[in-house]
């Protein structure tokens, strides 16, 4: 990689427009997605299959929806320099609340949806308040909240419970062409989050809170409220994921919490180019990150690869991707340069 340090020499009144265009991390994510699609497509073709057959495509898309919901929500909190390790438990909780409230009665569908989302929002609210008002580290706060919800689930529900009326199961099973309704809903939620982040004050303030809390506060942003909102929305997204689970299972299931959605969603968010330390990122990138994981899933499935190998590769890809983003984070333009250089000495190279 050639750092454009030399270009900064002439930075003066007319710079900025003259700067060469950098690939943003979102673009890298989608380039990587295309790359992986091509490689996987070729590999599958070599084996005589077709990765882009309708069945595989809808498999891929279906795989994106569950993690997609959770990851979109997770994006919001990660942008605020927080994280949510309780999402997996919230998903399980909401699948059960939704299914038991519906109790097989089509007329109670809306009630189930409202109840599940209300509970989800409640958990998010508590998370947000513990973090912002009690100043408990988000890692510990949400880990603890996850345990609390787990305890409740294990005590209250002895297994799959509740019944989802067929009308609502369509949310989990209907497809329009190869595209499952759940994926469409996920993309709508992602679009809503996109609008939130790019078109609303709350979204703008999330970037500010994650980017620099002091700057946000100095600019009159209500930082605590923003953080709480992010957590509520994150939990709501997890709640929708729980409803999707209920629709697909026809019932609620507590064991969903063992799917590892919490860490997977953080991985997807980071894979999507959002900075783990907040302030930079996008929902579009997250959707790309989720898609990458789904393509890998599908390709491995089609190629009949050992499921454990998938974990290995997933771990490697996440680390490699973040290492790549970290390389690109050093912004040559904002570094001061007075004289040209023959070397490329980075300032404070020893500070890890």
């Amino acid at each position, binding site marked *: 990689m050639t750092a454009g340090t030399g270009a900064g020499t002439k930075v003066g009144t007319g710079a900025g427009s003259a700067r060469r265009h950098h690939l943003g991390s979102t673009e890298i994510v989608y380039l990587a997605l295309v790359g992986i699609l091509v490689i996987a497509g070729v590999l599958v073709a070599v084996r005589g299959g077709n990765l882009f*057959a*309708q*069945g*595989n495509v*809808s*498999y891929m898309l*279906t*795989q994106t929806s*569950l993690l997609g919901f959770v990851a979109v929500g997770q994006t919001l909190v990660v942008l605020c320099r927080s994280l949510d390790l309780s999402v997996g438990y919230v998903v399980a*909780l909401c699948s059960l*609340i939704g299914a*038991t*409230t519906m*109790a097989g009665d089509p007329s109670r569908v809306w*009630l189930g949806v409202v*109840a599940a989302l*209300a*509970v989800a929002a*409640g*958990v998010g609210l*508590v998370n947000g308040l513990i973090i912002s008002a009690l100043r408990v580290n988000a890692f510990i706060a949400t880990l603890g909240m996850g345990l*609390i*919800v787990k*305890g*409740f689930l*294990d*005590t*209250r*529900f*002895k*297994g*799959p*419970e*509740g019944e989802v009326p067929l009308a609502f*199961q369509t949310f*989990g*099973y209907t497809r329009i062409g190869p595209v499952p309704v759940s994926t469409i809903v996920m993309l709508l939620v992602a679009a809503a989050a996109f609008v939130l982040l790019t078109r609303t004050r709350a979204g703008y303030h999330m970037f500010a809170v994650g980017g620099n809390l002091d700057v946000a506060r100095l600019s009159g942003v209500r930082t605590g409220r923003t953080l709480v909102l992010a957590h509520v929305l994150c939990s709501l997204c997890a709640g929708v994921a729980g409803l999707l*689970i209920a629709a*697909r*299972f*026809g*019932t609620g*299931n*507590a*064991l*969903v919490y*063992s*799917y590892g959605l919490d860490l997977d969603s953080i991985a997807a968010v980071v894979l999507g180019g959002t900075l783990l330390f907040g302030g930079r990122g996008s929902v579009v990138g997250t959707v790309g990150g989720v898609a990458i994981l789904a393509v890998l*899933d599908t390709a491995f*499935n089609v190629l*009949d690869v*050992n*499921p454990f190998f998938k974990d290995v590769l997933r771990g490697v890809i996440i680390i490699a991707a973040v290492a790549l983003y970290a390389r690109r984070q050093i912004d040559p333009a904002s570094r001061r340069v007075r004289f040209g250089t023959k070397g490329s000495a980075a300032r404070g190279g020893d500070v890890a």
Partner: protein
Amino acid sequence: MRPIRALLAGTAAAGLLLLTACTTDAPTEQPPAAEKSAAEEEPAESGAESEWFVQEDYDRELAQRDVEPEGPADQPWLQAIEPEYVDTADFAGEGGTSEGGDKTLCFSNASVSNPWRVTGWITMQQQVEVLQEEGVIGEFRVSDAADDDNKQISDIQAFVEAGDCDAIVISPSTTATLTPAVEAACESGTPVIVFDRGVNTDCMVTFIHPIGGYAYGAVGAEFLVDNLDPGATVLALRILPGVDVLEHRWAAADKVFSESDIDVVGVEFTGGDGAKIKDLVTQYLQRGEIDGIWMDAGDGAVAAVEAFEDAGQPYPVFVGEDEMSFLRKWDETGMTAIGNVYSNFQWRTPILAAQMIWAGEEVPSEWVLPQEPVVQEDLADFLEANADMPSLHYAKFGGEDLPGYPEAWTDR
């Protein structure tokens, strides 16, 4: 249970429920669940009264233990108890890409996340190889859902979607949740074979399973009742809550215990983690003698036995599983024990069932395989037969006549 302890536990539980009250909402929103929850908040977990206990199933399973299964005695995986055969002529020769041989068999596996499944999975692969050699099976396509119901639903959908499966074998991850997906698979016209855990539908051609969880649980509990004096103390170790096959085991055992003079001093969830099991047993031993251990699965049984050894306590009457590590420990210590069996050889049956269905042979609609525990008398035989097998191998894996034996299981 001492009153003070119950009181403290109750207080803690009540406090906790208050804390989590925001997640329960008004009872009016959940009328069907509300009544149950009151009972479940009691610290005592009574399986026999739980929603998992169905008297009818319990009675049937217990009766099935004494039924002589039909079929070859040396091939228990082909035996069936009280079979009701269904005609499969419709599926014969029909279907998919190939006529006669080289069929595509699709298998949606819940996971290979525990030793029991790993052992069975090897057996299944070996059986498939045999049929591939014979030209019955062309392609064996597998999706592993890694214990993710949602993924397994997609996996099954993908098989249906692909349209070229000549039969779909499903080992469901969770009973209730996979029902819609299995129904969809049935509707596609492809023969569907379900084994191990069931689903809430009877649309599949055959549902293959050993007698069941009630029988499993009851066998162990009865063994304890028979071998312990009245008033003896028993500790029940369970893996995790909410899984039907495991819940049935406990529900039956609880039923048996409740009808006896056995004192169940504790019911603990261990996650199958040896360290946790050993710690829990050790703690119980500190508080008093334990005369018997009942486990709902054999994972970590050796750790429980060791806890007695390390505490210098006499061996309990022990209900384990047919896992080699436990059988060896049992033999070594000479304790009074029984090796419960959730017939691992059932992993062969679906493959053979697929062959039969393709051939138009009739198969039992519910294929109940025998499920006989390993008892003291058989112990030596099983130990000898499996002498080279790894410790987390299951004695009744039923693959001795397969060509890959024994390397496939020893060198996995």
